[in-house]
């Protein structure tokens, strides 16, 4: 910046160019702002509509009489489509949290064994993780659905959790191994000489040191499960097991649904990972030494 200030009086064309760059980046900024927020704005536009059906069919581009009634309807479950909303929210949360915890546990155990204990099978396991990482999730969905039938795991959230854990764990292993390679091996040696067993090193040394990367992997798993539609749709059938993503998917083309309330529900559901993401961003980014761009 100081260089820019000093250079100002020297030559005019340069100033003009600088000005054009600033104008250009301001325009780009406005375009990006609209681009990023238009669908989010639309969610609020419909959700703030006092009577369902007004905005989406009359074409207002701003809410003429904004009202929070749709959110009240969701909170009180005051609509026949939303009668079990909080139970469905709970189902989604259960799947998300169980996926998160299991991924963190299984991923950290495997990463510790492969990275620190170095068994002969380590290469194979890393290969398996990479293979799973590269398989598109939706491609595995139908065979997975059939296999769960064979296992007898139909209509249980555990089948969905199993799918999400098997998709999220490879990422956890790759990230944890990478992060843990920065921890000196001498630490393990010292602990072993002091008489620590493998599980003790894992619990008392490894886990505390990899905590930032572990929370990153856990968030990844949560977001993966939260974003999922196809596995939940395929594997859960009964009314009581239904999740929010399934509810919204089912009513997607239903013209009778109260769309302001549905959008209010969508906002409540969709904003949770956004809140988690921005809440933990500084912690994770700071610990991993990244995020200087926005820090």
């Amino acid at each position: 910046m100081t260089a820019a200030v000093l250079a100002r009086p020297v030559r005019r064309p340069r100033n003009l160019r600088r000005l054009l760059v600033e104008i250009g980046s301001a325009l780009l900024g406005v375009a990006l702002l609209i681009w990023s927020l238009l669908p989010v704005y639309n969610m609020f536009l419909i959700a703030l509509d006092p009577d369902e059906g007004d905005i989406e069919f009359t074409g207002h581009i701003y809410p003429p009489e904004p009202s929070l009634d749709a959110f009240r309807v969701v909170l009180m479950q005051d609509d026949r489509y939303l009668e079990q909303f909080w139970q469905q929210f709970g189902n989604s949360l259960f799947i998300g949290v169980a996926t998160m915890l299991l991924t963190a546990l299984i991923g950290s155990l495997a990463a510790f064994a492969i990275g620190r204990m170095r068994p002969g099978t380590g290469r194979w396991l890393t290969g398996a993780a990479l293979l799973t990482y590269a398989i598109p999730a939706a491609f595995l969905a139908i065979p997975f659905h059939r296999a769960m039938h064979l296992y007898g795991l139909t209509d249980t959230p555990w089948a969905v959790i199993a799918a999400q854990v098997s998709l999220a764990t490879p990422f956890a292993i790759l990230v944890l191994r990478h992060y843990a390679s920065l921890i000196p091996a001498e630490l393990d040696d010292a602990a072993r000489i002091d008489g620590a067993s493998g599980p003790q090193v894992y619990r008392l040394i490894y886990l505390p040191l990899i905590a930032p990367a572990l929370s990153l992997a856990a968030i990844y798993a949560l977001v993966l499960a939260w974003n999922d539609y196809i596995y939940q749709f395929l594997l859960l059938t009964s009314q009581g097991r239904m999740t929010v993503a399934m509810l919204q998917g089912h009513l997607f083309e239903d013209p009778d649904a109260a769309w302001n309330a549905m959008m209010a529900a969508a906002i409540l559901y969709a904003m949770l990972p956004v809140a988690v993401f921005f809440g933990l961003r500084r912690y994770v980014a700071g610990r991993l030494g990244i995020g200087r761009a926005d820090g």
Partner: protein
Amino acid sequence: MTDLVSGPPAAAAVPPASAERPRRPLGRGTYREDRLWTAAFIMPYAAVFLVFTACPIGYGLWMAGRPALYAQLADDPIYLTTLFNTLLFVGVGVNLKMFLALLLSGFFLRPRWWIKALLVIYLVPWPLAAVQAFISVHWILIGDMGLVNRLLEELFGIEAPIWFNYRWTALAWNIAAHIWKWMPFWTVIFIAARLALPRDVNDAAAIDGATGVRRFVHVTFPMLANLYLVCTLLSTLWTIGDFNTVYFVSGGAPVMSTDVLATLAFRYTFDSFNPALGIAAVLSALPVMIPVGLVMIRRFQTREVGL
């Protein structure tokens, strides 16, 4: 899901550390007597992989093993349309997304306070729950009364078409929605990678008078090329399996002319009750996916990309 972000800078931090002290086989000696514990630690993941990944894959291959299924696919005109759509969706979507992300990562590093604030807003689509976000995109575009059409008319007086009545506009919006959702993620990766680049190279380029486009083409991009390639390949694989975008944005409209393989497989399985055909449709992408996956895994392992 700041996930892959951790990669590049950490990767860049590794080489100096390991270069200073000689590498020695980590742990081998320390944990020699702990065979049993090692096995116990590995067991959960090995079991998850075998039961929930390897078996379903094997079962799928077995179900879709009959050549007759592929003949049936080749006879279905919708399948051929879908194949073309998938090619377009992945080819245009991935390349446009990655290239724009690379350029925008440079923009977001400009030292202005409002650009830092903008980055936070720009990232919102990424953690937003996919189903809800794409339903909202669908609503924006649907019919005369969608927000996009209304805005175009109120602000510029343009009478926009009904997007989902035409195949090409529907395809274009599918691609745009995919880019909207996933470009922030890759932008963050490239921002992290740019930050990890050695400062002195850029300083030297600046002293030599390389600015703007020339510095990007001759200095910055060559250093990011390998990461860019791996990210593009990974994104290709993930985009082939992108079900949510097409299913919720265009829903295949008009009349199944914008489906991709992931959504067509779903239709075969549930609308025509023919899961074997659905899996066969999915597996027909393998000739593309296997080479892409192999190249990616090789790059992953041989070089310090560190995703």
